[in-house]
């Protein structure tokens, strides 16, 4: 009996050394703050192993004011902020990495634009240079944030060393009470288990309240997992997940979609799968 986490983990193991596992990485998301990664690549003379598996979003330093945006990158008054935006453009050009930045309709916050583009798919390992990368786990995958030196390792090798986290299933049942949102639910979970309550765990959210949630609500739940110290947050994929992904830019198409769907349907945790810890909450309260 296997959990969603067990299945994804097993499929990505490249090597094992003592208590650390070398995991294959399907997608790596970066942003303007990832500049040190490129400095290190340059200094060490390394190349990007799979530029088609690295996706850059201009979202941490790009101005939100439409009037400033209309002036182009040169319109950013602060030279240090302008430099951050320019560095991402130059580095992604140099290393031939896809960039969703200035003037691109697909540009957005990497944890929103990633799902909108269909990059966040079930069963994958996705890492991002941002602590809230757990958001993508809403689509039934293993997603977590990594630091600058880890990002260098990932883009140079398409792998990452990890200690296997334990799994914690949090079951949230019942209809949401009047005025209760996904944010309230996850805040209630964190209040219950504490801000360090999920350290060392990958959380899987389950239960009828979660099953009824839209993908946006599920993303809110998974996004906040790290505020309880969790390595990752994830939700088993279902028809809502597949409907959201269908026909998105990076989603598989045609026969590849049919094959992907067949595989995705094998991913959800088996009912009796052993989880280290199971906790239950009632959504109405």
């Amino acid at each position, binding site marked *: 009996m296997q959990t969603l986490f067990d299945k994804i983990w097993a499929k990505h193991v490249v090597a094992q050394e003592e208590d650390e596992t070398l995991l294959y990485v399907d997608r790596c998301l970066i942003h303007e*703050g990832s500049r040190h990664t490129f*400095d290190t690549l340059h200094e*060490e*003379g*390394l190349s990007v192993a799979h530029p088609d598996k690295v996706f850059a979003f201009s979202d941490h*330093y790009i101005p939100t004011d439409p009037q400033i945006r209309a002036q182009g990158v040169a319109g950013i008054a602060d030279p*240090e*902020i302008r*430099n*951050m935006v320019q560095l991402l453009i130059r580095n992604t050009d140099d290393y031939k990495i896809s960039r969703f930045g200035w003037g691109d309709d697909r540009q957005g916050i990497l944890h929103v634009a990633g799902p909108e583009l269909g990059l966040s798919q079930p069963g994958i390992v996705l890492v991002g240079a941002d602590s809230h990368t757990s958001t993508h786990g809403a689509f039934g995958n293993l997603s977590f944030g990594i630091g600058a030196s880890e990002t260098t390792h990932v883009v140079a090798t398409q792998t990452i060393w990890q200690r296997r986290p334990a799994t914690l299933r949090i079951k949230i049942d019942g209809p949401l009470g009047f005025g209760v949102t996904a944010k309230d639910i996850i805040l209630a979970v964190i209040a219950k288990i504490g801000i360090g309550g999920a350290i060392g765990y990958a959380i899987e959210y389950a239960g009828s309240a979660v099953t009824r949630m839209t993908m946006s609500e599920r993303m809110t739940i998974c996004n906040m997992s790290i505020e309880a110290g969790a390595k990752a947050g994830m939700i088993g994929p279902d028809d809502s997940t597949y409907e959201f992904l269908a026909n998105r830019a990076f989603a598989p198409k045609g026969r590849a979609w049919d094959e992907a769907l067949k595989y995705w349907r094998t991913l959800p945790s088996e009912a009796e799968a052993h989880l280290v810890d199971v906790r239950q909450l009632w959504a109405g309260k």
Partner: protein
Amino acid sequence: MQPFVTLSGVAVPLDEANLDTNQLCPTRFNKVPKGPRFAQILLHDRRFNSDGSESQIIFSIRSHVVTP
């Protein structure tokens, strides 16, 4: 690529629980261009007093500083 074997430097123990590693480079300095200013950023908010003088707490207690 040179294998990482030994790093020699000055060690400054911070004897406290739940160390906040964001203090190594407080977030507002993340956009500072690489260069000489980096030396002033390291542990900035723990090192300097409000008048800009260097705090005596971290780097000046010689008995806590272990030189290689």
